[in-house]
């Protein structure tokens, strides 16, 4: 029930600090949670991807994550420096349905925070939870190393519960993935992100 009550907490915070204040607050919560999750190290991408599949990594706290091992990201030398990862269901969708059944409709505060984030930070959010979520992933990626290299996370595409989609042109270009590939993935997944080795020189980076 605390997840359903969260919306009224956000409503209250908007009154006190504005939607921009809630965005900052959510991002700080993302930082705090990531800082409490500890560091992880993997010998290589194979062991990391197995750990993701077996829900052993910090990313697994979000729910079931699928490593898309057919979608490797390579650097200028042709070495694999990252992969795409996807979630079939957005973490927040069950809460949206629970709110629908318990209260009747989602609070407008959810949309206010989403709009604020999309307009002023990164146009990728489909719900207020994306604000926390993107920052959390970026921070935990820094604490995970694969073959001695820490990771960077790029949120690429999202699909909201009512079907609206968002693709981050900026991040898609950064990891050199075609937007059509993203659209294809969004038919089956609700949240797609890339994990790459920090500092890698991506092949064909735009």
């Amino acid at each position, binding site marked *: *029930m*605390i*997840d*359903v*009550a*969260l919306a*009224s*907490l956000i*409503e*209250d915070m908007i009154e006190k600090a504005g939607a921009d204040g809630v965005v900052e*607050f*959510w991002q*700080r*919560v993302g930082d*705090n*949670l990531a800082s*409490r*999750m500890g560091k992880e190290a993997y010998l290589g991408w194979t062991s990391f991807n197995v750990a993701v599949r077996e829900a052993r990594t*910090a990313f*697994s*706290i*979000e*729910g079931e994550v699928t490593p898309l091992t057919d979608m490797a990201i390579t650097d200028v030398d042709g070495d694999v420096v990252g992969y795409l990862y996807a979630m079939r*269901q957005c*973490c*927040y*969708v*069950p*809460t949206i*349905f*629970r709110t629908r*059944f*318990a*209260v*009747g409709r989602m609070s407008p505060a959810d949309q206010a925070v989403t709009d604020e984030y999309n307009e002023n930070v990164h146009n990728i959010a489909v719900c207020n*939870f994306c604000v*926390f979520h993107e920052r*959390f992933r970026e921070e935990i990626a820094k604490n995970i190393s694969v073959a001695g290299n820490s990771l960077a996370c790029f949120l690429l595409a999202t699909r909201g519960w009512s079907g609206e989609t968002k693709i981050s042109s900026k991040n898609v270009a950064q990891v050199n993935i075609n937007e059509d590939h993203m659209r294809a993935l969004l038919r089956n997944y609700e949240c797609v992100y890339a994990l790459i080795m920090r500092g890698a020189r991506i092949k064909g980076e735009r």
Partner: protein
Amino acid sequence: MTTESRIPESNPFVEIATHLFLEDIATKVGIAGLNNYLVSLAKNLAASMPKEEYASWSEFLSALSTGQSILSTFEEVRPINEHCMTTFRSPFERGWREYAKRVGAFAPVHREVARYYNHKVRPTAVTSMHVVLHTFREAAAARVHVDRDGVRYEPVASAWVDGEVQLPEGPNLESLLKRAGISRTKLGMLMRNHSDVWLLEPA
């Protein structure tokens, strides 16, 4: 009762994030301020849910046990008799388990605010989540009418996932048990495998 008629389960990650959200609030407003936040959010949640009316107490009990009442939206309620209700598992158990597994020990602020609530309001909270739960049930019960009467809620005992039980002492407990129609021994038996024992009666 079919599974489809119950509210879907939340993703525990959202609950963990909410716990962190509350921890952050506590650093700014202190324990008393967090207590006020929790009380206010539980009241707001109940106020945002539709009111209910039932023709008889038995119809109300049936709605409670089949998950159709506002009071059984987030938890599975098992009536022991006409007025004594139990919750088998805390609605916060999954979130807490995931928190303990992925993040670590529960932040002390969750128990500190419960101690504040026990001192200021009523002695039945083990963690911050009980502040939400008791306040929500009280506000939700006030939205229910059975025949011409309102409904009043009182917590009898609460246990947290780690087994810690909180309940009133002395005459207060005896009075609650009498109104709930159970003995002290029966309460002990219920608390072995239930997260909460509570009382509903006509107001």
